[in-house]
C-alpha cells in the first residue's frame, strides 16, 4: 500500500507537483533523520543532510525510471550526503572488516547514563561502514541486496559487516543486556 502511494507521489513530483515533495518529506523525515543522525552524530549536520537529500530528490526525481525503487534511492542519496559531510572532517576508508570500532568507549565510562544512551553511544562508536549497514538492517528492515545496492558493495560484504558489527556490539553490551533482562 505504502509503496503504491510512494509511486503515485513520485509520479506527481515527476510531473511538476511540488506538494507531493512535502508529502514524501512527511513520510520519510523520521527514518531519514534518524539514519543521518546516527551516521553523523551531530544534529545540525544531520539536519543539513536531510534537507540536501530532499533538495536532490526534487531536482533529480525525473532521473528515477523505476519508481518502485524510490525508498532505496532516497537512502542512497542520504548516505552519499552523510559521507560527503564526514569526508570534510575525517577520512572515510575501509581497513579491516573485523575491526569495527571507530572509538573505544569502555562501558565503565558510560555508567550512570540511561540504558538507551549507553546502547546508542556504543552503536555510534562503530566504524561508519559497519554502522550504516546495521542501521539500514535493524532500523529500516532492508534486505542484504537492498543494502548492497545503497552502499555500492556486495551482499557478501554486507552480510560480513552486519555479522561483525553485531558480534562486537553484543560482546560490549553483554553486561548491560543481561543486567536489563535480570531486572
Amino acid at each position, binding site marked *: 500500500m505504502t509503496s503504491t502511494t510512494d509511486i503515485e507521489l513520485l509520479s506527481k*513530483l*515527476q*510531473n*511538476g507537483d*511540488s506538494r507531493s*515533495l*512535502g508529502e514524501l*518529506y512527511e513520510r520519510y*523525515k*523520521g527514518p531519514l*533523520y*534518524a539514519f543521518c*543522525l546516527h551516521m553523523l552524530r551531530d*544534529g545540525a549536520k544531520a*539536519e543539513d543532510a*536531510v*534537507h540536501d537529500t*530532499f*533538495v536532490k530528490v*526534487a*531536482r533529480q*526525481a*525525473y532521473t528515477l525510471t523505476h519508481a518502485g525503487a524510490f525508498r532505496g534511492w532516497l537512502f542512497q542519496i542520504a548516505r552519499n550526503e552523510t559521507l560527503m559531510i564526514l569526508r570534510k572532517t575525517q577520512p572515510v576508508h575501509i581497513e579491516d572488516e573485523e575491526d569495527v570500532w571507530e572509538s573505544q568507549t569502555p562501558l565503565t565510562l558510560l555508567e550512570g547514563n540511561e540504558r*538507551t544512551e549507553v*546502547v*546508542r553511544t556504543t*552503536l555510534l562508536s562503530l566504524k561508519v561502514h559497519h554502522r550504516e549497514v546495521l542501521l539500514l*538492517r*535493524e*532500523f529500516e528492515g532492508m*534486505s*542484504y541486496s537492498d543494502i548492497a545496492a545503497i552502499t555500492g558493495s556486495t551482499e557478501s560484504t554486507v*552480510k*560480513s559487516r*552486519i*555479522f561483525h558489527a*553485531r*558480534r562486537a*556490539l*553484543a560482546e560490549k*553490551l*553483554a553486561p548491560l*543486556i*543481561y543486567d*536489563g*533482562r535480570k531486572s
Partner: protein
Amino acid sequence: MNCTLYHEDVSRYIDRELDEGRIAVLFAHLAGCTGCREFLGAMMELRSTLHWLPAPRVPATLDRRMQSFRPGRRKSAPALLDRMSSWWNRRLLVPVPALAGTALLLLSAALVSFSLWQGARRATAPGQQVMYIMSLPTVEVEGIAPAQTPSIQ
C-alpha cells in the same frame, strides 16, 4: 565447520537471509552446541535492545526549512528543445574562441580582398585617371608665375 561460521549463519538467520537447507544444518548444530545457542540468544537480545531505542525527534527547524523550500522549475524530464539547446551549448562551449578567431580572420580576408579588388579596378581604367589629372585647375598665386606647361614636341 567451526562455530564462527555458524555464528555468521545465526546472524543471517535472524535477518531471514538464510535458506531452508542452511537453517536445517544450523539447527542441527545448535541442538548440540551450547556456545552457539548462547550466541543466538545474545543476537536476539541485541536486536530487541536496538529496536527499543527511541527514534530521535526531527527538529522543528528542519520542518521550517523544508516548508520554505521551493523546488526549481526543472521537475520533469527536459523537453526536446531544452535537450537540443544543451546539445548546442555543449558543442559551442569549447570552440567559442576558435569561432571568434575564424570570424576575425574571415573579416580581415574580406577587407584585404576588397582593397585588392578596388586597386585592380583602378588599374584597369587608365583613361579615367588621365582625364582626372588633365582636368586639374590651374591655380594662380600672387607673385608667382604659373608654371609653364612643357610643350610636347
